[in-house]
């Protein structure tokens, strides 16, 4: 068999293995079933510090935000790597002033975007307006 075809097949096999590894080990797993979660929004510019508790079957934070988009006044921006939250409680970040909504999960910095943050029972997801 042509050497180039063999090389391409090897690289494709490695890519498939990499995709499998990414999905198996890196993407956080969602939890099925009903859970009670709290969404907290802090925006010191508007003197907002509100909490909302929901019972939901959704597995990821983004799904809950999309369902409650109107109530939470959420706005999103689509990037090539997924959706980011750009507004909460009808307040949209001013990118000119380097504002963004920082996400905490139970007070800890979130390490992924809302599309990969799994919802867990009794967890609190905080969106705080910050500047960088």
């Amino acid at each position, binding site marked *: 068999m042509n050497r180039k075809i063999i090389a391409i097949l090897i*690289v494709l096999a490695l890519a498939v293995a990499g995709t499998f590894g990414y999905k198996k080990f890196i993407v956080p797993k969602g939890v099925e079933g009903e859970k009670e979660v709290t969404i907290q929004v802090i925006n010191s510019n508007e003197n907002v510090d509100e909490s909302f508790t929901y019972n939901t079957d959704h597995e990821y934070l983004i799904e809950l935000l999309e369902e409650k988009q109107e109530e939470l006044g959420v706005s999103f921006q689509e990037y090539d*790597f997924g959706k980011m939250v750009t507004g909460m409680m009808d307040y949209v970040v001013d990118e000119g002033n380097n504002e963004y909504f920082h996400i905490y999960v139970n007070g800890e910095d979130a390490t992924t975007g809302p599309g990969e943050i799994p919802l867990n029972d009794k967890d609190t997801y905080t969106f705080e307006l910050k500047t960088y």
Partner: protein
Amino acid sequence: MKVRDVVLIGILSASITAGKLALSFIPNVEIVTLLFMAYTAVFGYRKILLVSLIFTTTEIFIYGFATWLLGYYILWPLLILITEAMGKRFKSEYIYAAIGAVFGYAFGLFFAVVESFFYGIAYGWVYWVRGLLFDLIHGTSNFIIILLLFNPLKNLLGKLKRNYYTI
């Protein structure tokens, strides 16, 4: 700089922008890496560094200014310099394909570092992790495209250079 160099740099810059736009409907499959590498191998790094400056600046005109474009001003010249350095030692298209693959796999990581300076480490981390699958597609497709097309393109450009440039 001679007039023919100005024309050449303009044509090469336009071809890279056109090549990028032509494949922009497929996420992270591109021929920009292939073109930069082939152009560097045929015309040398000095001219192609200027091409990369024009290409990136054209991107700003098309997409507007964004922080990721700052990375372009570093990343493409880096690829050109690596291609030039490796080209002097190796002639095999497998080496170029491997460079393109590593470049694609590390693309998101590099931009994550750049973005971290602007938006913080947490954002950079999210950016990288969420883009890992895209990087995988990018590196793999780079390897295949360069392995199959680098030599034919280099030979064709060499012929065109002899016929129209080196008169």
